[in-house]
Structure formats: C-alpha cells, structure tokens
C-alpha cells in the first residue's frame, strides 16, 4: 500500500517539471521579453543600468542556461520577484491561496451534495415527475455560465432579498473570535460556492443517476433485498456506495476545471483568492506572477489528482489486487 502511494506521488514530479518547461516556452513566446516589460514599468532607460539588470536577471545568457536556471530556481520554490507587489511571487500567492482552496472545497462539497442527492433521488424515482424535473434542472445548470449564475444569484439573494453579502470574504471590522469569523466567512461563501458548484452538480446528477440505475440491475442488489434489508439501506449502503465510483473519477478529472472556474467566480464576488491575483497580474502583464500561479495551480491539481486516485483505491478494493 505504501509503495502504491509513493509511486503515485512520484508521477507528480515529471508532470510538474513539464509544466515548468512549458512555462519557460511561454515566457519566450511573449512579444517583448519579460525584461522589457519589467524595465518599462519601472521606467529604466539608462543603458548602463539596463546592462547591469540584464546581467542580474541572466537575460544575456544562452537559452538552455536560462532554462536550467529557471528549473533550478522553481525547484527551490523561487518563482521570482513580483515588482508590482514588491514581494517574492511565492509569498504573494501563498497569502491568497487559502481563500481559493476554501472556495474550491466548498464548491466541490456543494456539487457532490446536490449532485449525488439529485442523482439518487432521480434513480430511485426513475421515470416519474421527480426524475424529469431533476433531469431538466441538470440540463439547464449544465448550460449556464457559472459567472452569470453568480451575478443572477447576487441580484436575487443579495440585492433584492439582502440575505447574503454581495461580495468579499469577511465583513470589514467584524473581527471578534475565531468562531464568529468562521461563521462570517461561511456566510460570504454561500453564493460563490453555490454558483460554482451547481454546474458540476448537474454533471454529477446525470452520471450518478445512470450509474445507480446500472448498479440496481446487479445480482448483489437482489441478494441484499432478498435477505430482507430495508429499501433505504439497500439504496444507501449497497447501491450508492458502488455507484459513487464514477463520480470519484469525474471529480479527479474536473479539479483543474474547478480551479479555473473559481478564477471567474472570484472576479464576480471579489473573493480575495489567486483568481483576483491572476486577473490583476494578467491585466498588468506581470508575467512572473501569472506563470507562478500557473505552476502552483498545476501542482495543486496534480497533488489533488493523486489524492483522488488514492481515495479510489480505498473505495474500490478490487484495484488493489492488481
């Protein structure tokens, strides 16, 4: 078991290395080098100063040396210096990352909770009005852009009804106690997490319904019924547990998309995560920051993917045997 865990985690390394190389290629694709942007922003025009900076940043060396240096520095978690925030890129990203991770986790929970419940309900009441209503809702939420859903929810629940705050992560000046703070963050989290989660909930509902119906036909379900288990127990403990496997696969595949989606949702709800940071950096052509977000985002997804795979191992003992 430990060996499997280690081997799976070891697969993350070449992936991250490839992302770093890709990053480097992207930097060199940019019209006007990173260096030009940097010096333009700080309005440096003195030739002697430029030469000195060129040497400091290693721009005068051959490309492969630059690549080797870049890989080496990213390996030491040195993603460069953001001249805009006047702080190392890594520190700035690490400051913002927790908010994004909270949003992602909350959205995933919403998606799983709503999607799985809807899917189970639709499969238990297959071909009834419930099933049709759930399928219809799934089709609609699957087509709605999450940012638009977020705006419409803001209009209804924040502007018209006033139930939830319009944006942000905390109420300004409310800070008293960790518990009150957590409640406050949760209150701010409801709308963004729902807006982001409903799209995935729609997918999960459809997959869960299909996979439940598939499992319902299997022999062991008949056995469970025959030995006199209550219908609820058959559905929850026997069918649902097996039907969940495709959902776990899907979850692993979609983590990158969820991270991308949270970038847009953060812009809608002014959530202070790496989305806002990325947006600001893209706008100001702050390339070290943009590429730093790309590397750390990919690392996050790669690690999360490995975790989901290991979770799969735990859920389905048949895989372990191989």
């Amino acid at each position, binding site marked *: 078991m430990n060996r499997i865990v280690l081997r799976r985690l070891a697969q993350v390394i*070449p*992936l991250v290395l*490839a*992302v770093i190389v*890709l990053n480097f290629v*992207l*930097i060199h*694709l*940019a*019209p006007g080098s990173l260096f030009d942007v940097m010096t333009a922003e700080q309005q440096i025009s003195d030739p002697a100063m430029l030469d000195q900076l060129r040497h400091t940043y290693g721009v005068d060396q051959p490309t492969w040396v630059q690549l080797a240096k870049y890989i080496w520095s990213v390996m030491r978690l040195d993603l460069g210096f953001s001249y805009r925030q006047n702080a190392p890129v890594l520190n700035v990203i690490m400051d913002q990352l927790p908010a994004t991770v909270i949003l992602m986790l909350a959205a995933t929970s919403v998606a799983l909770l709503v999607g799985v419940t809807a899917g189970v309900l639709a499969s238990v009441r297959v071909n009834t009005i419930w099933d049709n209503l759930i399928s219809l809702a799934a*089709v*609609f939420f*699957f*087509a*709605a*852009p999450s*940012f*638009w859903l977020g*705006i*419409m929810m*803001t*209009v209804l629940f924040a*502007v018209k009804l006033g139930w939830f705050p319009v944006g942000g992560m905390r109420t300004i000046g409310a800070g008293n106690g960790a518990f009150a703070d957590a409640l406050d963050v949760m209150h701010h989290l409801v709308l963004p997490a729902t807006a982001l989660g409903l799209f995935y909930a729609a997918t999960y509902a459809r997959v869960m319904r*299909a996979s439940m119906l598939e499992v319902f036909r299997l022999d062991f379900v008949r056995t469970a019924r025959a030995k006199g288990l209550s219908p609820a127990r058959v559905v929850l403990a026997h069918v649902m547990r097996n039907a969940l496997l495709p959902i776990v696969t899907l979850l692993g*595949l979609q983590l*990158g*998309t969820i*991270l*991308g*989606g949270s*970038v*847009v949702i953060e*812009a*809608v709800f002014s959530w202070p995560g790496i989305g806002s940071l*990325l*947006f600001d*950096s*893209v*706008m100001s*052509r702050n*390339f070290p920051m*943009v*590429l730093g*977000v*790309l590397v750390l*985002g*990919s690392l996050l*997804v*790669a690690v999360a*993917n490995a975790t989901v795979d290991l979770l799969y191992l735990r859920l389905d003992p048949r895989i372990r045997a191989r």
Partner: protein
Amino acid sequence: MLGLAIDFARRFARNRAALVGLLLVIVVIGVAVAAPWLFPRNPLRIVGRPEIWPFVNSRYPLGTDSLGRDIAAMIAYGARTTLLIGLCASLTATLIGITVGATAAYFGGWIDEMLMRFTELFQTIPNLIFVLTIVSILGQKIEYVTIAVGIVTWTPIARLTRAEFMALRDREFVQACRAMGMGNLRIMLGEILPNALPPVIVLSSLVIAGAVLFESAVSFLGLGDPNVSSWGRLIGDGRTLIRTSWYICAVPGLAIMLTVLALNLVGDGLNDALNPKLRDR
C-alpha cells in the same frame, strides 16, 4: 447514400429534445448570419438614452446598456463571435486531438507513452488559467482566444480517438491494407479514421458548447478582443449596474445559456443517431 442520410435523420429526429436543440441552433445561426441586414450599422455605436429596459421602447426591443448601445444589435453580432470562436476552437481541438490520439494508438510503444503523458500534462494544467496566460502573453485578439480555447479542450478528443484507433488498428481490413503495402499515413487517414470518426464527431460537437462557455468567461473578465461585440463582455460591462439595471446581464446570459443548451442537445441527438448501439442504455 441517400438512404443512409434518411436513416440518420430519422434516428436523430426520434430524440425530441435534439430537434428542439437543432431548431435553436438554426435560429442562432440565422441571427448571426442576418446581423448585418438586421442592424446595418456598427453594433458598438451609441444609439439612445442609456439603461432603457427591454420591451419599453419598440426601437430597442431588448433595451440599451449603460452607454446607450442597442442590446439587440450587440446580441446579434455577439452570436457571430460566439459561433465563430466555438466552431474554430472545436476544429482546432479536434485536429490536435485526432493527431495526438491517432498517432499514439497507431504506433504504440514509447510514442504512445510519451503522447499520453503529454495529454496528461494538458489535463493537469488548470484550463482557464492556461487560457488567460496565453491571452495575456500573446495579446487580446480573437484568433489567440480561439487558439487558446482549442489548446485546452483537445484532451478528451485525443483520449477518445486513441481508444477508437486501439480497437481498430489490428482488425483484418487494416492488416489487409498493410499487406497491400499501403503507407502508414494512408491507412490512418483513409482507412481507420473514417471508422473511428462518429464518436469523435459527437464529442467535437460537445466541445463547441464548452468552447462557447470558455469564450464567454474570457470576455466576461474583459480579456477578449475589445473590438468585437461579445455576449460575455456585455455581461461583464453590465455587472456594475446590477442594482438598477440587472437586465443588461440577464439578456446576454440567457443567450449563452440557450446556445450552449441547444448545442448540448444536438450533441446528444448526434450520439443517438451515430452510435445506435449505445442508444438504449
């Protein structure tokens, strides 16, 4: 051939929802094509008082936005942008996906291993972040947005093509072609690809829907091409006015939703018509 087409149409039409979707797609295409005749002048031009609600003034059936531009005109021209980007991005993704998937499966061995790792790499990179990175580096042009969206959406197509090619590459007819001395490229493109294509077409049609969503997100963030009217950008522009004129966001959002919905339904219908074996599942 005609018989095949009729058979195909009949199977497609059996799925009612797909017919509704097809109708919607035709309407959107019609609006996109007719936009220059319906609204002969520049859609980004200011026409009247700002923030006229829909259905109030008959000259501006969908109202005007915060600058006083005609929303109906921008929606019509936005349909062109959306469909064009969706179609081209899906085409890009399909080309990359088929190339990678077909090569990997046909040659196998280390080429397969390498290309699949490459695919995995693109699956790991958070797709929207990658699109934004590319657009920020190459510039805010409609071509770059299209290419960027194509680059992040090809992975499922590659995996599907690979699976289809794997199933076909050792079949008798392919071996016969090899025995006849046909070149690899000719076997791949002329013999295997036509047989592998139906499920790939279904997936490509679904990728169009995904591409439309991506494009709308990029232009919503204000990183799309500033010189073309786009549904996503209209939502982004109207966002500051949600307290008074939320319809500016609602109308283009509905347009995106209906288009994506219709494309998804058509994709499902194509799936039924092209993969009759899977239909009863």
